[in-house]
């Protein structure tokens, strides 16, 4: 029978650079997260069924009574960029929940005793959630197509919009990663994230144009990130003035990346 412990002086290890380890370890954790997701159908349900219900409800129930504000533009073409955003925004909550689980379940004790890269749990979580978000967005594009969603620009602009969306999803998820780490449990992380998401997603221009809103709400939606992103995505998918809204969105993404990511990484360093 093979010996269980090694009498050798040096441990049997594949030598890599520090960065090499960081990447390899993050990939391993992302692999583990994706495996886990594939075996928890409720997470897949939550991240796919819910946006599909939104598409159907808004498209067929409310759609008829919402004026897009752009003459001749079908509501479904206005709606879908908002649904894409809603999908990744709520996906960000799962990042926090997953991270809270990672840090509060027994497994973190093992991770802390392994010679793995310290950043791996956070980086792996961000990576696996990017993969999940990408999958859900592709699914939503297909669902949108089935209910009549069409782009008015070109494929290049559409792909740029999806890239912008995914970049936003990563930066935005770091807010909820922070909440996940600050929360004592994954349930608390969910409870803490929801009001913030509601304020950002439901009180936004994701589903209805700002024109019908009271002035103070319009002012809020001129600056809040979800509405700013919605404007940029619509510009890229529907057309019209593009440079300014996209720049505004990029500024939000860079701003989140520069301000929130270091705070979250720092919190993670102390928590992990």
């Amino acid at each position: 029978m093979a010996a269980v412990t090694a009498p050798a002086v040096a441990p049997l290890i594949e030598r890599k650079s520090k960065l090499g380890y960081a990447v390899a370890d993050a990939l391993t954790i992302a692999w583990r997260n994706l495996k886990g997701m594939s075996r928890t159908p409720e997470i897949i349900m939550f991240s796919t069924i819910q946006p599909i219900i939104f598409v159907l409800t808004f498209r067929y129930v409310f759609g008829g009574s919402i004026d897009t504000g752009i003459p001749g533009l079908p509501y479904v073409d206005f709606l879908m960029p908002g649904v894409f955003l809603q999908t990744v925004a709520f996906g960000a909550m799962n990042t926090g929940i997953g991270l809270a689980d990672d840090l509060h379940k027994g497994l973190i004790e093992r991770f802390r005793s392994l010679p793995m890269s310290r950043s791996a749990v956070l980086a792996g979580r961000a990576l696996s959630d990017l993969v999940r978000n990408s999958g859900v967005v592709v699914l939503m594009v297909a669902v949108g197509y089935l209910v009549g969603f069409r782009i008015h620009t070109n494929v290049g602009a559409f792909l740029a919009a999806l890239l912008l969306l995914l970049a936003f999803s990563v930066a935005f998820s770091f807010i909820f990663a922070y909440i996940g780490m600050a929360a004592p449990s994954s349930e608390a992380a969910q409870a803490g994230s929801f009001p913030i998401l509601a304020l950002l997603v439901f009180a936004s221009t994701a589903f209805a144009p700002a024109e019908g809103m009271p002035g103070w709400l319009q002012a809020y939606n001129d600056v809040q990130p979800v509405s700013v992103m919605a404007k940029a995505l619509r510009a890229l998918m529907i057309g019209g003035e593009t440079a300014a809204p996209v720049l505004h969105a990029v500024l939000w993404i860079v701003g989140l990346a520069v301000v929130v990511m270091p705070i979250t990484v720092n919190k993670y360093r102390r928590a992990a």
Partner: protein
Amino acid sequence: MEQPAILAEGLEKRFGDVAAVVGVDLAVPEGTVLGLLGPNGAGKTTIVRMLTTILKPSAGKGTILGFDVATQSDEVRERIGLAGQYAAVDDNLTGRENLIMVGRLTHQPRGGIVARAGELLERFGIADAGDRPAKTYSGGMRRRLDLAAALVHRPRVLFLDEPTTGLDPAGRLELWTVIEELVADGATLLLTTQYLEEADRLADRIVVIDHGGVIAQGTASELKRELGNTIVEVVLADPSDLDAAKSLLGEVGPTDLGDDRRSVQVKVLDSGPAVLDVVRRLDEAGLAPTSLKVREPSLDDVFLSLTGHSATDDEET
């Protein structure tokens, strides 16, 4: 090269006002087993977490194979395996995937990881369940998977925190056998337990801790000799002889009446000569015992005389 595999000097940990560990010294030579014995809240887990780099000591130092746990944590982590008090396995991964994950995270050569996982599943008797998610495992299977995960990277120094707590007697026996095999392979092992029997069976040396500090140490037999007394128990045919027998045997050693009101217990140091002495005196006085028993001290007796409370006194659940 005669440096101990595990060394702790003045190790301390405070959590705010709580002094969880106070000035603990340990030295575990390579290839030996140290049993860390103590009741709930004694500080066992805290000591293990400091020596496995999970917690920074508040004071003092610890080294593993010469590497400092506080400043050389990567070198330490490459060389240790930990099976903590609560099994740290990923419920959504299969047993095999759990081991593969640990193999990757300990940076084992890619080609060998899958084979290693299979070998460990075999060895720990969970090969049949190897491709089922760990959430379907029984408590004993989780423990074994956890232990297997601690061994993926062939660590030279192993920490097992209460490895058999929560297992049924058969499961415990099975795990003991596995641990004995590891030791036979030459692992250095630090094992914590609340079970005196377990320390007695598995450990070369035992360190007894209570309230965060070391209160006794030695081999099991040293501890027994030092602190426990052998008890000679005489059960009398006629309970009315009890008081006469008690005063008679008082000259052999301190006596007590048994709870059953039919026996006299004599504490002695060396059982052989004492038994002869007891028999001779009883015979001379014409007192007939129905039975005569010699009871060696259990480690429980040792613990009781050390701490004034039984090892399992404040056990929850």
